[in-house]
Structure formats: C-alpha cells, structure tokens
C-alpha cells in the first residue's frame, strides 16, 4: 500500500497542514530542520534506529544511529558556536560524500547559520564566486580539497575559518585554518538549538542561469513541510525502508532528499562515497538490501550501457520503488527498468528554486514513460502561452511551465539579487525555464529549455560562465558555448573558439583548453568538444548568435538570420 493512494482524493483534500500536523508543528512556533531530523526522531523512540549506513570506495563502512546523528550534529554546532560564528552567517560544506557532510549539514542548521553546500569537484574559480557572493564566514572541507581554498582565501576577507575535518598533522595548518574531528571530539549531549522560525533562512544552493554569475537560491526552515511530505508521498518512504539517494549534497537533490526528507521521516538511508561503476552500484544495493532508490537519468543510462548480463550476478529483489530526477527520463530507460528490475523508474521534476518535487509520477499510479507526471497536490502547475503568460485553456499546446508560487519550499529570493528573483515571475506565475505540453490526462511532457542553460547529467551549466572563463585562456580570442546531444548525459558542453594571432588549432591545444576549464570551473563545465573557427556568427550589433550554433549541433532549423552580420 502506498502512502499516496488516489490522486484525485489527495488533490481534493490537500492542505500543507497535513504535513504540519504529522510533524507536530504549529504556525508561529520554532521550526529547526536540524532538530526535526535528529532530536525529534530520538524523542519518538527511534534513537537506536540506524539513520545512516556509509560506505567509502575502499569498502570502509560506518553506521550511525539517530542518536549518533543527534550527538554529532550537536558536536558540530558547539564547535561552530565556539568559533564565534553567529546565526545568519553562511557556513559552507565543501566535501566529498563523507559522513561529516550529512551530519555537519544538520549541525550548521542547529546554530541558526545558513548552510551553503558546494560540489567538491568545483574548481577554484567556481568556489570563489560562490563564497564571495555569499560572504561566507567559514568552510568545512577535507585535506584533499583545502589547496583550492588556499588559492583563493586572500581574495575572501569574510572567510574567517577554514575547517579541515580529516587533518592528520602531517603538514602544518596555515592561516585561518583549524582542525575538527567529528568522531574524536567530545560528544555534546546538550546543545541549545537556535530558535529558528518558518522564514528563517536555512540553505543556500547555487544555480546557473543563462546570463550573469551563479545565483544563490535562498531557502528557509519552513521548506521542511514540503520536503517531508514529498519524500513520504512521492518516494513512498516507509519506516522499514532502506533508502539510497545517489545525488551529491553539493546539489539540491542531495540535501532535500539525501538529508532532510529521509531523516525527518526517521528512515534508514545509505550512502556510497564512490565514483560510478555499475558493478559497485548493484553490489551496494544487494549488500544493503536497498528498497527505495532515487537516482538520475545519466546514471540510469550508464547502467543500461553496462548491459543486462551484469545484473544477473546480483540479487536486487529488495528494490521496491525507483525514482529519477535531474533531467527528462527517456522512455527507453523506463522500459528498460521494467524489463530488468520488474518496475519502472518514476520520473520526478523540480529545481533548486522549487526546493521540493513539484511534478511527478506517483507511486501506485500508471507511469507514462517519457512524461514527468502530474503536479503534486497543493502545487498548481500549468502550461503558459509564451506570448502573454496566460495558461493555455486546452491540452496539447507547447508552452512554458508555470507554477503558482506559495508552497513551503519555494525559494524566497536569490541571494543579493532581488532583480533576478523578480525576473523569474510573469503574470503571477513562477517560470521554471522549461518548455512542455500537458496531455488530456494532466500528465506533463518535457519539450526543451526556454533559455541557453545547458543541462548536462542533470546539472545546469551557464554558457556565459564557461565563455567568461574561456576568455582567460591565453589562446582564446572569442568563444560561444552551446550544448550538443549526448547519449548518456542528454547534452554536454561544446565550445566554438576563435584563436588569438600566433596560436594554431591543434588537438593538444583543444585538450589544454578543456583542462583549463575543468580545473577553473568544474568537470561538468568542461567542453567535451572544442571547434576552432575563423569567426563566430554575430548580429550586426556584435552579439554572438548562440542559437545558430545550437541549431547546427541539434540538426534543427536555423530560423531567422536577418540580423546576422555578413548575411
């Protein structure tokens, strides 16, 4: 029996008060995500229940009960408070998927500080712009990543504390650095949790747009109300489940559904801190008897590529419910999972800005392969006419996905960028930036992005950010960055580049530029192909026409070229 039940019944009787009541929250009271995800579960009599099963790539394993989570997050919180960091300051987590990342997240929230998780593969430039924008006070990191922080710390006057969670004493600590060992520190039994309220800021996730630098999406503690209920109804998490979310908490899925959702429900979850390998993943599912698995289309397509034979080596019969997020899940992947696992992956649709799943294929309801599903009850989603931003009255029309704002985990603003926030709304609708159509049954089907943002492997990459970084390479005169199709990652970054005098196109130069971007920004932003050209298509006013290059890559009609220079 699923938690969700019947869609029409749920939609008819829906109120977010359902979630508030289940969590024992009353409007106006204190609400702190850190407390809800640890102390409250212990108070429910589940202190000794396993909260987190963690496994590293060497096979090292650690197990934490809910009482461990409570004590260690208190220990984190005490350490932060003793450093003199005050509520409201930004504290960054820049780590691989080690236990300190998951538990530190809750500890930071207990102090009233705003947690800023950042993907540990970010290069120094990506790290710098995000820490500078947030005026971050402290960063928790590992010794393997601290050199990236050292390279930029002199440009970050607000960054007072660089905290290394696995310091081994082999090399001396440097300026502003301090060591902290979660497991070796004295456990803190009692910590007075900062009284956060519904609108107190909680999490700052950064996301990329078409123009400008990355934007900090500000969420608040009240987001818990959405994240709890969607984790329960959409992921169908039950008390006895073993849950595996493969997302990294450097991104929003890894926090909303890799920390807040499952821990607020008191569910046991497992984490594999390892790079991708089909065999390692299947072995992990078998060993931990995973029942609910939340993954991403890129990973699913990589598993498909690894073949069906390998699956027969493992007992995956524990799997009960499968879900996917990050980019549209193609019908072939859904049909493949039905064939090999006996059940479909359920596509879920949402964004950093929405904070929770907003459109989805619900457990127990028929999955339409290729569709993102139906709106979550309490969330009004529609297809808007792009010309007047009015909802299309009839199904089947392609337009913009619009969401009526007001659900608990909707972003409250972009950090220090109210103008960009306001620009996301038209005619009272929040625009997701995606184009789609709705069928007669109310299922929504993704068509494409409405802007130039590249969705590669479920992560958004700003062409502007890559182009800006390319110009810092000594050989690059001009560049234009677009997506190109990719069978695994849906799309990947491609750069068109003109060279400065004295430089000649070559395979080695292409590789040099690729590595330059990888280290400066991130592996995701690295162009997987660079095409050297004599000139770029521009308007007569000198603006590069990315859409022409994009159309060529995707085999689409180029469209109106009347404004093209030299046309």
């Amino acid at each position, binding site marked *: 029996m699923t938690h969700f039940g019947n869609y029409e019944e749920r939609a008819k009787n829906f109120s977010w008060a359902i979630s508030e009541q289940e969590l024992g929250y009353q409007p106006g009271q204190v609400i702190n995500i850190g407390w809800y995800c640890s102390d409250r579960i212990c108070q429910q009599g589940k202190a000794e229940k396993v909260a987190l099963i963690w496994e590293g*790539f*060497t096979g090292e394993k650690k197990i934490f009960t809910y009482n461990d989570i409570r004590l260690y997050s208190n220990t984190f919180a005490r350490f932060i408070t003793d450093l003199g960091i005050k509520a409201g300051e930004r504290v960054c987590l820049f780590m*691989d998927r080690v236990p300190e990342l998951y538990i530190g997240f809750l500890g930071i929230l207990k102090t009233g500080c705003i947690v800023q998780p950042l993907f540990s*593969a970010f290069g120094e430039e990506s790290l710098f712009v995000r820490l500078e924008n947030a005026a971050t006070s402290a960063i928790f990191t590992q*010794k*393997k*990543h*601290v*050199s*990236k922080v050292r390279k930029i710390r002199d440009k970050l006057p607000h960054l007072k504390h660089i905290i290394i969670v696995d310091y081994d004493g082999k*090399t001396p600590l440097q300026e502003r650095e301090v060591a902290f060992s979660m497991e070796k520190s004295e456990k803190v039994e009692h910590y007075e949790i900062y009284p956060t309220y519904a609108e107190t800021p909680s999490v700052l996730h950064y996301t990329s747009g078409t123009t400008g630098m990355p934007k900090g999406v500000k969420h608040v503690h009240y987001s818990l109300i959405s994240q709890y209920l969607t984790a329960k109804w959409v992921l169908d998490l039950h008390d006895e489940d073993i849950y595996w979310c493969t997302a990294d908490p450097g991104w929003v899925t890894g926090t909303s559904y890799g920390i807040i959702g499952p821990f607020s429900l008191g569910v046991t979850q497992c984490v594999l*801190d*390892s*790079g*991708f*390998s*089909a*065999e*390692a993943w299947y072995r992990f599912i078998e060993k931990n008897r995973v029942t609910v698995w939340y993954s991403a289309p890129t990973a699913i397509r*990589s598993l498909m*590529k*690894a073949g069906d034979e390998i699956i027969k080596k493992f007992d995956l019969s524990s799997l009960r419910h499968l879900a996917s997020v990050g980019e549209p899940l193609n019908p072939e992947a859904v049909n493949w999972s039905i064939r090999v696992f006996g059940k479909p992956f359920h596509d879920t649709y949402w964004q950093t800005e929405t904070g929770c799943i907003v459109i989805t294929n619900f457990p127990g309801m028929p999955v339409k392969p290729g569709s993102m599903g139906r709106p979550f009850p309490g969330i009004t989603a529609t297809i808007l006419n792009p010309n007047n931003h009015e909802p299309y009255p009839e199904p089947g029309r392609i337009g913009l996905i619009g969401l009526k704002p007001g659900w608990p985990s909707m972003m409250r603003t972009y950090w220090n960028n109210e103008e960009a926030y306001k620009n996301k709304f038209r005619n009272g609708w929040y625009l997701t930036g995606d184009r789609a159509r709705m069928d007669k049954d109310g299922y929504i089907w993704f068509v494409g992005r409405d802007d130039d943002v590249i969705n*590669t*492997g479920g992560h958004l990459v700003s062409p502007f950010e890559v182009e800006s970084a390319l110009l810092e390479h000594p050989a690059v005169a001009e560049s234009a960055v677009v997506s190109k199709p990719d069978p*695994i990652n849906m799309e990947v970054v491609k750069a068109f580049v003109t060279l400065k005098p004295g430089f000649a196109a070559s*395979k*080695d130069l*292409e*590789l040099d530029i*690729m*590595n330059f971007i*990888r*280290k400066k920004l991130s*592996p*995701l932003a*690295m162009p*997987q192909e660079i095409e050297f050209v004599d000139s770029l298509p521009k308007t007569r006013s000198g603006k590069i026409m990315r859409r022409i290059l994009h159309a060529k890559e995707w085999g689409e009609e180029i469209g109106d070229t009347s404004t093209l220079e030299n046309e």
Partner: protein
Amino acid sequence: MDDLKEIIKNYVINEYLEPDSDPIDYDTPLISGGIVDSFSMVSLKRFLENKYNIQIPDDQATPEAFDSVNKIADLVRRFVKA
C-alpha cells in the same frame, strides 16, 4: 611503450590531483576512488588518444576500463597493437 604506465600516472597526478592529495600507484582506483569523474574521463581519454595516436571507441571507454593506471595501460596497449 615501456614508460606507458609512468606517463599515465604522472598525467593523472599533474592534472587531476590536488597538491596535498595522497600518493597514487598503478592500482589506485581512479574512477571508483573519485579521483577522475565521468566528465573528466573525457579529457583523460583525449590525452591518451592524442599521445598515442589512437581512437578508443566510446563503448570501450568504460569506468571499469579507466579505473586504474594498470587498466588504462592495458586498454591503450590493445589499440596501439591493433
């Protein structure tokens, strides 16, 4: 080809490891160990193709085949011989 493994190892150290990282050897897990991710694998593959003037088909450029210096060297040898 005698120094193939050393060339690959040095390239990984110079391109993918931070200065204070733990040392690696020919069997250190690169992909499953999180040193080289699936996106970065593209640049490592491109390096090998440029350096040894070979083409490694995408269906053979798997995470398993790139998971250590030894495995990468085996892969490269197959194409150089071919």
